[in-house]
């Protein structure tokens, strides 16, 4: 569906929160140790974009794998690395985005694949 410009978009398309992932908003505040309906779906989301390696049966348990995935995601998107599905993280997750994975075959050169800022690097010289 193509629209020549914004003024040609019909009001019927005014759909706040009409994103494929809007349902994730109900997971706001979820943290490690909880079991909440919908966490399995967000695990699938993280699997799709490379943050969870295993493709087995995802449960609604907020386990270590999910916490690690969230922390990695937060690092890649410059969010506070809380490991919790906090407001800024959820707001970011539901944004429309490119379908390509952020982490391919377990490796990434986004933030999570780089040493933290300020990490000293070793320089060597010929003796």
């Amino acid at each position, binding site marked *: 569906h193509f629209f020549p410009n914004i003024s040609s978009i019909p009001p019927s398309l005014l*759909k706040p929160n009409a994103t494929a992932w809007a349902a994730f908003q109900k997971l706001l505040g979820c943290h490690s140790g909880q079991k909440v309906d919908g966490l399995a779906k967000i695990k699938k989301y993280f699997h799709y974009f490379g943050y969870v390696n295993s493709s087995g049966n995802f449960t609604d348990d907020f386990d270590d794998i999910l916490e690690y995935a969230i922390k990695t995601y937060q690092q890649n998107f410059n969010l506070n690395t809380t490991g919790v599905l906090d407001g800024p993280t959820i707001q970011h997750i539901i944004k*429309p*985005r490119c379908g390509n994975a952020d982490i*391919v075959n377990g490796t990434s050169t*986004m933030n999570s694949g780089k040493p933290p800022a300020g990490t000293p690097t070793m320089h060597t010289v010929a003796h």
Partner: protein
Amino acid sequence: YSFFPGRPRWPASKTDLTYAFLPANSLTDTIKSVFSRAFDRWSEVTPLTFTETASFQSADIKVGFFAGDHNDGEPFDGPMGTLAHAFSPPAGHFHLDGEENWVIDGVPIDDGNFFSTLSAVDLESVAVHEIGHLLGLGHSSVEDSIMYPTLGAGTRRVELANDDIQGVQELYGSNPNFTGPSTTLTPSQENDTNGTPKFG
């Protein structure tokens, strides 16, 4: 900036790339011109050129709008969600979600909250991003870069950031006519098979 694993890129001997649109989409010239502008943004900073061809099968880059499952293992999910995806070189597959509402005009969009509440996406912003993938760039954590993975509601992002330019020039070198920030020669340029720098 980042690259795909193994840093795939188009061969040094192939600087003139062709692209074609899926005939079944029957895109208008106006829509095609959006892609032309998007390709131009990358050719301005690299020695690469992009030319439209009528032959979809023989084109280096194949652009198509698809809905749902389109047999590449990455089905689209309807309006919003994932917007498009593209394959690393030299595959050349550039797929856009045919169920999105695409805005094709290039005027600034973020003049208020109107657009941000719409389920509509700026086509050129997505096109510029996906072409970055077609050239070998992965996602970037730099928020104002083209290769940042998300496109916030109401956002039009079509200008290459320094991060994007540095990334693509590390793969292909700079366009001799490019007057922006210069980047240094890289191993991918210096270590060509015949030892001759191909770019810059």
